[in-house]
């Protein structure tokens, strides 16, 4: 455990910018979008003041930010970037490619709603767009977790058995712009924790010229793409290994799944991001009232901790899953996955969509969800 501990009042953006300063990545291509802007503004100020030696590339779009990141990460340089919402939407084509080319890029995401109508506030629609890309996707509950996950992310991304992009999500405004006490590790501790950047086949290794990003026909495509799935499976273990090591360093354990007061729970709620903080309070209240309720906080959306979700819910009869993104005409993504995971168990699985475009989810609404009294769209005003 770290011997000296000092908490500072930081927003999620500042916390993540500080993690980036401590990691000191080689290259950071950036393009501004609310609520990500304070991350890149804070970070470029660190660079301007000589606190990191990073090469900033002020690209002309997010598509180019992710493209430059792929080039840089595979050239042999540790590469990070950040985005939100429309920016992530613009990147999606290249995020799939980054995963396919096994580029261990770390990206901070200030999760935000997608247009139209244009809206700058938090929900998870942008992250869901990249769900099937092959990128690892983590969600923080608060500014501290955003910092912690950002420090852990290079270790996960760059692990030789993983080599996938890692997206570290924090809810727009609720986390990116809200100041809370955040404990930073000493700079040297972070630097030692992340270590040197090493990838198996850097493009700039001229002694072994390689072709990267080749064209594959049906005879190979399936196998090549399947390697991502295999790396994701391995990432499940790697995330826990890195989390254990990080706990030794920080005293904080950031597992892919946090089980909160689930031991003897009959009813469980599943969610991601800042909402988990509010749900924990409601769980505490309900527990005090004698209700057997608990929370599954999913920190790793990809890879989804499937077995652990199954085990954690084994004693539950009711599971409510909250998606902060909609799938018009379908079933919420996390809801559908939990339903599939718990298929055959005795739990009845319900799904709710909430919080689109930054709408708050109140404790009263969370209570209604636990009570089975909430509509599918929680917090939606009736059309009347």
């Amino acid at each position, binding site marked *: 455990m770290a011997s000296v501990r000092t908490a500072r009042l930081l927003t999620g953006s500042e916390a993540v910018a500080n993690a980036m300063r401590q990691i000191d990545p080689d290259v950071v291509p950036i393009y501004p979008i609310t609520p990500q802007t304070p991350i890149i503004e804070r970070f470029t100020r660190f660079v301007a003041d000589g606190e990191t030696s990073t090469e900033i590339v002020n690209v*002309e*779009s997010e598509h*180019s930010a992710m493209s*430059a*990141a792929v080039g840089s990460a*595979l050239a*042999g340089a540790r590469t990070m970037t950040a985005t939100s919402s429309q920016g992530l939407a613009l990147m999606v*084509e290249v995020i799939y490619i980054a995963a396919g080319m096994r580029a261990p890029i770390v990206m901070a995401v200030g999760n935000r709603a997608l247009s139209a109508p244009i809206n700058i506030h938090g929900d998870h629609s942008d992250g869901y767009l990249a769900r099937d890309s092959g990128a690892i996707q983590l969600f923080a509950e608060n500014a501290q977790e955003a910092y912690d996950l950002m420090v852990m992310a290079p270790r996960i991304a760059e692990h030789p058995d993983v080599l996938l992009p890692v997206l570290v999500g924090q809810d727009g405004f609720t986390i990116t712009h809200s100041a809370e006490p955040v404990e930073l590790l000493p700079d040297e501790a972070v630097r030692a924790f992340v270590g040197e950047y090493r990838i198996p086949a850097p493009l700039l290794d001229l002694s072994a010229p390689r072709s990267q990003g*080749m064209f594959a026909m049906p005879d190979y495509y399936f196998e090549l793409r399947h390697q991502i799935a295999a790396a994701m499976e391995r990432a499940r273990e790697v995330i826990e290994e890195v989390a254990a090591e990080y706990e030794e360093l920080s005293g904080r354990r950031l597992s892919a799944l946090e089980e909160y007061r689930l031991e003897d729970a009959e009813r469980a709620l599943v969610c991601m991001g800042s909402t988990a903080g509010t749900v924990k309070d409601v769980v505490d209240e309900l527990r005090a009232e004698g209700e057997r309720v608990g929370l599954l906080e999913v920190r790793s959306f990809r890879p989804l901790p499937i077995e652990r979700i199954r085990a954690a819910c084994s004693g539950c009869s009711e599971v409510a899953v909250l998606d902060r993104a909609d799938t018009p005409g379908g079933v919420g993504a996390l809801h559908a996955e939990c339903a599939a995971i718990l298929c055959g168990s005795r739990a009845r699985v319900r799904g709710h969509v909430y919080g689109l475009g930054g709408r708050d989810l109140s404790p009263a609404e969370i209570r209604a969800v636990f009570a089975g009294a909430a509509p599918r769209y929680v917090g939606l005003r009736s059309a009347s």
Partner: protein
Amino acid sequence: MSRLKTLVANERGTPPLAGGHALCQGCGIPVVVRTVLDSIATPKVVVGATGCLEVATTRFPGTAWNVPWMHVAFENAAAVASGIEAAYRALARRGALPQDDPITFVVFAGDGGTYDIGLQALSGALERGHRFLFVCYDNQAYMNTGIQRSGATPLGASTTTTPAGLESLGKMQRRKDMTAIAAAHRIPFVGQAAASHWYDLSRKVEQAVAAGGPAFLNVLSDCPLGWGHEPKLFKSVLDLAVETRLWPLYEVVDGSYRITYLPKRRVPVTEWLALQARFTHLQRPDAEKIVAEIQRRVDEDWDRLLRRASSDAAATEVS
């Protein structure tokens, strides 16, 4: 050393793009690639945009490339090169890479990956000043997907998305002047060349690499399938594009225009059109006006270029 010997010497016994790739007979692209890369003495790293060159040279698990090569997507080659070049600078600065033998970064993209979908990324990279050479092999259409029209397709050409027909004379817009667009970025070197004129191309590459900043080369390259000519007419059809003044060879160095090849006589553009099936419909009586329009615009563009180059030359003499 003669230029040819220099090219051979730069290959160091290993062609950067080996034979055995799947590009068509009579295609100008491999000529452009080999001429460009062999004109560079330093180690090279190549970035490619999606298109014929990429698809025909890198079918997994084989590759025709003997130099480090990367492809990411269609529209972002310049952005990928920006990232690689930034990585190179970062790594060199902290001593992780040798700095004595600098790497030259070269991008190859078709006209689609340059004029159209790739224009934004290219413009951004040129404005930011990354040290790389962007080579557009301009075969005047999206060839890889089956000869669709691009912003580089000339007026009157029949393509699969602007087909000539009873009510159509092919593409009805003129091509954009991509070389001028690149020059408007005020980068150190911009050149227009043709696959047929290898000496001129090679000299421009040398100059582009020495210019010490972003450089752009627009190289006319034929496509026997898309243009509709015999593969063996590779050189003639490109030569005629240059001789008719439809594709002037020139360079813009630090903003100054210089014509690098002066055709000796006026060859009518119809001679060039006649070689290619994509213009066959222009022989119809109702196409006379279009043909006249093509000629008028070629003359107009040439005169403007000539004026520009002579005033820049005069300005150089005065200063």
